[in-house]
Each structure stands twice: as C-alpha cells, then as structure tokens.
C-alpha cells in the first residue's frame, strides 16, 4: 500500500504541476475579459480583482478606467455597480451574497458584475481637498497653510504615503505638516485614498470645507500609515468633526484599530437642511509618526450592500 501511495504521490505531483501551469490564465485572457468590461463600463462602476493578489493584473488590463478613488476605496458606497475579474474560483471582498447580474468566462478569467443600486454618496471630501481652508491653531492665532506646488516627495520602503506635488504646506520648519490627497497603506496593507493630516500636537490642525451639501450621514474613515501603527506602541490621535463650528463627533484612534470607521447621523432639522461647513481637526499628545490620513463622505440613507 505504501509503495503504491508513494508512486501515486509522485505521479499526482507531476500531474498537478502540469495542470497548475496550464490553468494559469495568459495575459491574453485577461485582455479579453478586460475588453468585455471596458465596452460596458460606466462612470460609477468599481472594478476589483479576486483573489486580491491578482489586482496588478486587473489594473494592467483595465487601469485606464480605474482611478485612485476606485483603487483606494474605503468601501463600495460610492459605486453603483461592481465588476470583478476573478480566477481560481474566488469571489471579491465585499461582493453581494447573491448571484452576479452578469457572469462570463474568458479562458480562465471569470467576469462578474453586480448591480449595487444607486450610490449613497453625495459628497466626497477627498475630491474637494484643494478647495478647503487649512490652518494650524484656533481663533485669531491660527496660522493658515497655503496650497502650493511644494514638490513631490517620498517613495520607498518605510517612507509612508507619497507627498503629492500640490498640497497645503504649513510653513518652513514644519515640513511634515502638510495636507493633501494621497494613498496610504493601512494596517492591513491596503490602499486607502485619503487626506493626509498629521497632527502637530495639542494645537489642532484644521481642514474646513465650505458649502458641503447636507445629507443624513457623514461616514468617516481614518487611520495611520502601516509602519507607524504596527508596533502598537505610540499614543492615540483624535480627529474631531465640526459642523458649522460645533463639534458633532470625534474619533479617538489607538494603534491597532487600523482603518477605523465612524458614522455620524444628522437627524432632519431646519438647520441641517442647508449646506454647511465641516471642519476636521487632528490633535495628538505625541504627534511623532502620527501620519493621520482620513477619508469621509456625505451620504444619504444606506443601501443594502457596499456600505
């Protein structure tokens, strides 16, 4: 029995090797699947890979229609439809637990589409960061930070989120104090498109958005760059949200909490019906390596999936 088991194992290993090689989809298969998706792509669609390690292959084939908002999404609330290019029988993270609305196979690459329903997102703060007002401090002593072409910076292992070419710079000698759109690596090593807003200390760094449309909810995600959080040894940061100057919520974030979600509900009222200003303040008792990055959206009532 052992003799046949050993010889059978060797033959099985040979057979499995040949099968595995043959089953790995060629780039041409990805391209055919991508062509099908591209022909049907609409604004508001999200495209994902399953398993997630195939993501570079999906972006190679379809990256021209995938923007930072898709690639660095916090959830699927901002999208009306979900496309998945899947291999090895995998389903994408966050996909509805039902049969896809479209399902095709292209030489080993499966294309699936789920219609999620209209997006609940009405305003994305990251989209509007350039229009925001940024200042360090409060009241008359606040020092404004200017939107500037400050020069791109960063790149490399341990460097954290890339400093975009254009950003709010908070003055000479405070190079680390900048506010702008970037993509950070969160505690789960996932990409998060967000507004970088590292606190200076106990003095708040404030980012204010004017004329934000009122909706029922504000959904806020915030976290730190992976290497700044993974050791679980540094102090917390606080991210306060003010509506028309009044604090309406705050997130206390401690190492280990990762890309943390906070949802603020705004009950219907006359004052909540009009556009408002929203201010996001970051503080930390020990701001070293508190590379806070956050993403927030104003949303209407939640839909069933993708929230």
């Amino acid at each position, binding site marked *: 029995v052992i003799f046949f088991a050993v010889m059978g194992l060797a033959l099985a290993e*040979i057979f499995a090797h040949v099968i*595995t090689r043959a089953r790995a989809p060629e780039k041409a298969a990805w391209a055919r699947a991508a062509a099908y998706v591209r022909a049907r792509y609409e604004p508001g669609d999200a495209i994902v890979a399953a398993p997630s*390690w195939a993501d*570079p292959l999906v972006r190679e084939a379809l990256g021209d229609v995938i923007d930072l908002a898709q690639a*660095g999404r916090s959830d699927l609330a901002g999208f009306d439809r979900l496309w998945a290019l899947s291999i090895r029988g995998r389903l994408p993270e966050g996909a509805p637990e039902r049969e896809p609305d479209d399902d095709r196979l292209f030489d080993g690459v499966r294309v699936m589409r789920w219609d999620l329903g209209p997006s609940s997102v009405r305003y994305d703060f990251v989209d509007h960061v350039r229009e925001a007002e940024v200042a360090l401090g409060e009241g008359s002593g606040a020092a404004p930070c200017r939107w500037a072409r400050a020069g791109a910076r960063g*790149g490399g292992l341990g460097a954290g989120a*890339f400093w975009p070419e254009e950003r709010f710079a908070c003055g000479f000698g405070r190079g680390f104090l900048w506010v702008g759109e970037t993509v950070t690596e969160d505690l789960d090593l996932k990409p998060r498109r967000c507004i970088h807003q590292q606190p200076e200390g106990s003095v708040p760094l404030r980012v204010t958005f004017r004329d934000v449309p009122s909706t029922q909810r504000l959904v806020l995600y915030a976290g730190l760059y992976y290497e700044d959080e*993974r050791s679980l040894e540094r102090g917390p940061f606080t991210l306060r949200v003010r509506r028309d100057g009044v604090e309406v919520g705050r997130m206390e974030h401690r190492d280990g909490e990762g890309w943390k979600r906070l949802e603020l509900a705004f009950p219907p009222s006359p004052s909540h019906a009009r556009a408002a200003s929203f201010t996001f303040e970051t503080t930390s008792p020990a701001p070293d390596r508190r590379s806070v990055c956050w993403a927030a959206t104003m949303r209407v009532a939640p839909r069933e999936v993708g929230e």
Partner: protein
Amino acid sequence: MNRPGRHVGGWDHLVGFALAASYLGLLLATAPAIAMSRDESFYVVAAERMAPWFELLADSPERAIERSAVDRHFSFNHEHPSLAKSLFALSWLAQRRHDLFPEVSTAHRFPAMVLASLLLWLIYVFGARAFGRPAGAFAAVSFALLPRVFYQAHLNAFDLPITFMTTLVVYCYWRSLASRRWALLAGLAFGLALETKHNSWLLPPIFAIHFAWMAAAEVAHRRRGGAKRMSLFPYGLLSMGTLGPLLFVGLWPWLWYDTLPRLEEYANFHLHHVYYNMAYFGLNYFRPPFPVSFPFVMTLFTVPLTVLVLALLGLSQRLPAIAPGPLAARLFPRATEVADRYRTDVLMVGCLLAPIVVIAMPSTPIFGGTKHWMPAYPFLCLFAGLGYWKVVRWARELLRDKLPVARHSVRALTACILLTPSMLETVHSHPFGLSHYTYAAGFTPGAADYGMNRQFWGFTTGSLVPFLREHLPEGGTVWLCDTTPMAFDMLARDGLLPANIRPARAMHLADYVLVHHEHHFAEVDFQAWVAFHDVQPAYVLTHDGVPIITVYANPASRRVRR
C-alpha cells in the same frame, strides 16, 4: 577499529565527481538568467575591496598584515567571516586577469557554485557509506533538484557554502569516531565552517549530544560484558575545539586586531540580529514572536512532496535505530533495523532537526525564507535516499517474476518516477526560485492564495531586462524598489543591460518604477500611483500567473517607448 558505514572506493568518487561536474555545468549554464540579489551585491562590494589585499599579500606580505591594510580591505561587511568572500575575491581577480567567465557576476558566483557542486559529491559519499550507494545517489540528485537549493546554488552568498561546510564537518566528525586522522580533519573542517557562516555554531552542541548518546550506549554495552568497540575519548570534538577557533581567527584578517572586541561585535550582530519583514499566511511578521510552524510549513511548501514523504519513510524505517535501546526494544519488538555502534542515525537526525528547530524558536528571525535551515537538507535527502531504496525493494518484490526487467532497471525506473516532480519543478522555478512553491502549497498560485512570501532580495529585476531594453531604447532611469543599485549595476557589467539605463534618484523622476511584490512593499505600489496619478502598470512580470514585479511608466517621461 571499524570505520563507520560501508566501504566506498574510487568508483564511488568517480560517481561523486560526475555528479559535481554535471551540476557545476548546469549552474554555469543557467546563472545568467538569475540577476544579482540584494545580499550578493554587498558581497560583490566586499570581495572587490578584499581583492587588492590578496594582491598586496602576494607582493608585500609584511604590508598586507599591517592593521591599516587589514582594516581598509576587510572592514566592509565584517558582520560575516571572510572565507567565502575571499574565494569570491580570488575568482574575481582571476576573471580580471584571464577573462575566464562570460559575465562578471559568474566570476563572483563561481566559488559558491563549486562548493554547491562538491556538496553533491559529499552527499553521495556520505549516503553511500551510511545507507548504501543507491540511497547516496538518490540523496545527491534529490538535493540538487530542490527548487530553492537550485536557486541558492547559483549565488555568491554563504548559504550553499555553509551547507557544504557543515555537511563536511559532520562527515569528518562521523569518520573521526573511528580514526584520529579524521579527527584532525574534523577540526580543520570546523575551522573552515566557522570562517564561512555562523550556522556552524550549531554543530558542537549536536555533536556533544550525539557523542553522549553514543557513549552511553557503549558504556551500557560494556556493562553487559561486551567488548570495547570504540574509544570514548572525543578526539573529533577536541580537535574542533582547538583547531576550529585557531583556523577561524587565522583565516579572517579582520580578527587579527582587536580580536576580542571584534569577536564580541560579530557574535552580538547575529545573536541580536535585526528583524526584517516576512509574509506568512497573509500576515507580515516583522518582530518576535515568530510562528513556530514557519520552518516546518515552509519546508513542506517548498520541498517537492515526494522527497519529503520519502524522507519520512526513510526516517520511519530507521526509528528503531534512533530511539534509545530500551525504548526501541519496547516500541519496535520485531524491528530488524538496529543502531550501529556510532549511532549514525542519531547524528543525522540531529543534523536534520537542529537547524529547523533553531529557526522555529519564536525569537529567531525568519527573514531568510528557507535558506537559513538549508544545512538540514542534505540529511533530509539522505533519509529520502533511504526511503527511495525501500521503495525499490518493494518494487522488486512486487515485480518479481512478473516483468522481465533487470534489477538496475527497477532502480532506475523508480528513481526516474520519484525524481521527476523535483526535476519538473526545479526547471520550472528557474529563474524565480524564491517565488516558487511546490505541490503541498498548491504551487505558486496556491501560495499566493495563502498569503506566503513571494520573493525577497529584488533579484527578479533580471527578468525585466528584455522589457527595459525594449522600452528604454535611448536609456533612462528606473526606480529599483528592492534591488540594490550595485545589483542593478551588475546587469550592465554583465553586458545584459545598457549602461545608460540607470537607477533613478527619486521615484517621481524615474522613467519606470518597479514594485517587487512582497506584502510589506505594498506601500511602494501606492506611492507610485500618487507619484504618477495613475494606477495602470505598464507591465506585470508573473510566474505561473502570479504577479512578481509591477512596472509603472512615468507619464511625463519622453524616453519611455509606449
């Protein structure tokens, strides 16, 4: 006194030589496809700094041994001993003078390739003595065809050299149990092993346990009225304890001055080694405690399963000889396998388990993948050879009178079937040796599903040479991610890449940005997206459909051919 094991003669050494020569030829032929790895590039720098010292030693020995000369030529990379790097340096000097190899990198790598090849000879002879010629031959070939070993055997690094050295020390020590001449050789070999890499520190404890085990059995034998079968004086250990350190210090010029502080610095470097990142089942480990299962699972996932099962078969066959006498008698009352007086099985099991157990300790860094317990693999393969021989004997019993096949045909056919998985996987793994996983992991895509480490050292950049040549026809810059500038420079020195394709100073200024896919390098992917305002790679290098390197093109670059 009887020597351990069976007789081995000139024909056996001819077989060993043939194995070594064939492997060396194979390594030389396949080396150009493997670009320099991170660590190799540091050893290139070290070797090329040491090389002038050897010229000075030849021209003016008294000046060469002066402290200023020693410090100048040996201070770089002094966290590792100098023997392997000295060989790399001498090989590079030979290349400079006689242009022996088609590539500079091959000149640097040649000495380690020779040692990797000699290891096959050694495994064959060791196996032939301990378990018989067929087992020895199978062990040597199965070792040569371990995908990760095949990759490492190409490199001007220390992992195959130390695997050769530790196996050599074990062999000499084993022979020293019956011969004082071999005790002397054990001491010399241990000195060379110490001078190669710190894995050698493990050997004395293994030997001490083995010797005590063997001595206890001998004492029990004598108490039962048996005749004296061996000396209980540990000549081999004594030789190792005296000659080893002498040779270690004598061959490493860095230790000729400030010997004790420098020894302390060397020991502390390795006893308190920094931790690097390593992905394992989807988690990125960067500090202790590390998973105890790591070396066991990685062995399961990277060694062809047939070889592992054969090793287990061989081990199980020898269990009665490994267990202490009374326990063996109780557990295996009808066993036909008996321990030899030198407790060879105990020694081999110790050498198989110790390197793996050390890495399994939660405080031991795991950044080196499987290479840090490669000294265990010759013994794994020796037991696999024993397992193979068991399968051959079963085959003969089954086929007796049924098929008109000769004895040798059964041996050869069985070996072919049992080694084909290894051969297929090794051939297919080249040049992605560190990315390749075997059957138990579901091969490379299965390992990606499990979230295992996909590579390290940035050597896969070599597989992008055709892409870079085609897309940067007028030269340009590349942001290298995990590849060191020295390793990249070697592609130009080898004539593989034009010299006008250079490393970029900054990511956003590069014509191309590379991202080597390892879990902790995910941030580099995201940095490139922001730097170029684009998430679409220009190219994704894959192995079995699994991304290995993603390449981004700078949309502002005028040199990139799209």
